[in-house]
């Protein structure tokens, strides 16, 4: 696992001379902020940090936490849970770079999607909407019926829980799975991943080896 920042999208030609749409992620070097063990924390995990906080934003608790790893407070801190009782191979203060993906072919990317604000059901859930004409008035993008008497028979019509309606869309944690890792650039700490990745350019992301296609 590695933390990084989305740089943006571009295109590259692959070895078969096909043009691929790719996302460039500047990932690492991350610092191991803390190693959690069953004895001390109840579970095994490695805490990674990325991107220094600027001096005016560093709090004393954050400085104290970072000092144990001999580093500065980080803007983006995420934990990598280790399965079962596997012991961490990393030590506090270690640096993790893109080189860990040298053998990897597929990755998952976790990010926060772009916020869309309050969105109607057509945009949010791909509803079909109502006709544009034939007597339709003032409800071209409406969700239609929400419930009838029969949806909760005996208690009077009630809207079921989880009914798809308009509401806040985006700005949510999204995982995209099994994206091909096209290339890595160790010099500039870049990962080149095929396809799109959630979030805006400059948004923080977590990149991990694909859990479906472990190569």
């Amino acid at each position, binding site marked *: 696992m590695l933390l990084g920042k989305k*740089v*943006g999208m*571009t*295109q*590259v*030609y692959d070895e078969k*001379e096909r*043009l691929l749409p*790719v996302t*460039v992620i*500047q990932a690492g070097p991350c610092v191991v902020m803390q190693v959690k063990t069953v004895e001390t924390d109840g579970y095994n995990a490695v805490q990674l940090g990325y991107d220094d906080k600027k001096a005016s934003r560093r709090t004393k608790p954050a400085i104290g936490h970072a000092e144990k790893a001999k580093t500065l407070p980080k803007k983006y801190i995420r934990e990598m849970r280790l399965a079962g009782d596997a012991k961490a191979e990393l030590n506090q203060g270690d640096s993790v770079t893109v080189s860990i993906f040298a053998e990897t072919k597929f990755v998952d990317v976790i990010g926060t999607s772009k916020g869309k604000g309050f969105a109607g059901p057509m945009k949010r859930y791909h509803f079909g909407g109502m006709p544009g004409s034939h007597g339709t008035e003032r409800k071209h993008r409406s969700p239609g019926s929400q419930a009838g008497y029969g949806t909760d028979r005996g208690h009077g019509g009630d809207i079921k829980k989880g009914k798809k309606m308009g509401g806040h869309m985006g700005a949510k944690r999204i995982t995209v799975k099994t994206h091909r890792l096209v290339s890595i*650039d160790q010099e*500039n700490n*870049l990962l*080149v991943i095929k396809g799109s990745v959630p979030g805006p*350019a*400059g948004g923080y992301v977590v990149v991990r080896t694909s859990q479906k296609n472990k190569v």
Partner: protein
Amino acid sequence: MNTALLDKVESKCLKKDIPHFEIGDIVDVHCRIKEGEKERIGIFSGTVIARKGRGINSTFTVRRIVAGEGVERIFPLHSPNITDIKATRSGKTRRAKLYYLRERTGKSTKLVQEHSEHTVVS
């Protein structure tokens, strides 16, 4: 968005030896064409009427008249399928996009030849 980093990624795919040609030139574009297993080189020649984009997105448009019908092809400048671009005749132009040629037919589509340094007179 840090375009400098994107440029670094793109730069590996960019061609370094693109032959010089200008808007208005008549060019032969040597293009690799795959037919089943076989590969051959097809040549599309015509007038360069536009160059667009930057970096890996840069393209150029070549227009010619085939059997009385105007045909335009847009080539990605850095595509590995384009093996060569040969300027055979230069044309005098006063603008960067020669879209006005689309309205013209016959002799008026021909641009006045301009003898610049890169011109290859065949």
